[in-house]
């Protein structure tokens, strides 16, 4: 990332605001729908830029302790999938389910904060 300001999420936020306030109201109904989808998508990218690194780090930390091994987030998720597929971990594994629910809640916080998060 260049040492430049404004930072990317702030730029996205200002674009999103402008589209929502200035452009969206004048559009036809079908384009309005798609513009809303696009505006929401910009919101997702903005939240990912702001919160993604910390959420990913937390997920990787949980995975390292769950799997008792090191690796990148992608490697750890692959390793966990392999353990599940091989029936070494199942639906009765409370620590596993708690981890998965926290990861899903983190993803929803980025992708769609309005979707009620699971209560865990």
């Amino acid at each position, binding site marked *: 990332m260049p040492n430049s300001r404004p930072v990317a999420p702030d730029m996205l936020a200002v674009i999103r605001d402008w589209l929502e306030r200035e452009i969206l109201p004048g559009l036809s109904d079908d384009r309005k729908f*798609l513009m809303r*989808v*696009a505006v*929401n*998508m910009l919101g*997702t990218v903005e939240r990912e830029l702001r919160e993604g690194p910390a959420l990913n780090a937390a997920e990787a930390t949980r995975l390292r302790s769950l799997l008792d091994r090191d690796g990148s987030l*992608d490697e750890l*998720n*692959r390793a*966990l*999938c392999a353990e*599940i*597929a091989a*029936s070494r*971990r*199942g*639906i009765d594994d409370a620590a*596993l*389910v708690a981890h*998965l*629910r926290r*990861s*899903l*809640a983190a*993803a*929803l916080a980025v*992708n*769609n904060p309005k*979707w009620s*998060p*699971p*209560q*865990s």
Partner: protein
Amino acid sequence: MLAREEFAGRLEAALGRHLGAPAPIGRLIRLTGGATKATWSIEAGPGGERRAFVAQFSVPRRVDAGNPMAELPRVLGADDAACMIAAAAAGVPAPPVRAVFDEADGLGAGYLMDRVEGETIARRVLREAVYAPARGAFAAQCGTILARLHTIPPAALPFLIESGPAQQVDLYRRIYRSFDHPVPALELGFRWAEEHLPADARTVVTHGDFRFGNLIFGPDGVRAVIDWEICHLGDPVEDLGWLCVRTWRFGGSQPVGGMGRREDLLQAYARAGGATVAPAHLRFWEGFGCLKWAVMCMMKGQAYLKGGERTVEALAIGRRMEEPLADFYRLLAGED
């Protein structure tokens, strides 16, 4: 695809041919369009009267050889129309089919049906005062409709493929794995589905996508069941469970389409001649329905990686995958 003028000309000729009288087209509006489907709203006057129709066109899904997505149910053109005709004969509210287009029409696979006036947008049906009676009756009405739907004789629809619970778990897992995007929450979900396959699954004609968006509402309730393109032979409880998947509640507080109670759905289903459904059986299809929708989000949202649809809408759906997965674990924890 045909240019609009050419399409309109051929459509007008086809209408005249199939309706038995010249039917000049007044209004022609494209309602939906996508890579695999196009829906047109038509006002045309055979013999001077003015009638409202909907024409539906579909093209086969294009996937590479060996891609598991090729195994998904897909009912096109004349077969799609045949499903609606058979459904209407079984007492299911479905739009009357007026014509099935053939090669002479030069329009591609499609058919013409009467336009059923009403509302398909969930937000309106869930909130507007005029639909209060529809909301109150919804769960029981769907129970009755689905009981009738499941009596459609499979022999009338010989083109339907069979897709029972075990087949679907296997197929959707293979589709998920074909994306090489490991999602532990989905992986564990598939293990659960495999371990909870319903022992008493039967095989009947199932709609496959019975939910908000594919139902046309009037103030009193469901007027028509549309979108039969993933109709298949399967377990009847699939349709009941899919209707309860949280995604299809569109923010409504009740389990059945956001508007009704599971008990009312199942009671009406049994009263109308459907089988008695065990809660665990319904739960399987609700839970697996969440997993299916998660995989569908993946299919839609990551299709562009393989040369497929690259639109704002498609990519946005890709980022919805965690919604049904969170709902799946909520269901398992007894929080739903």
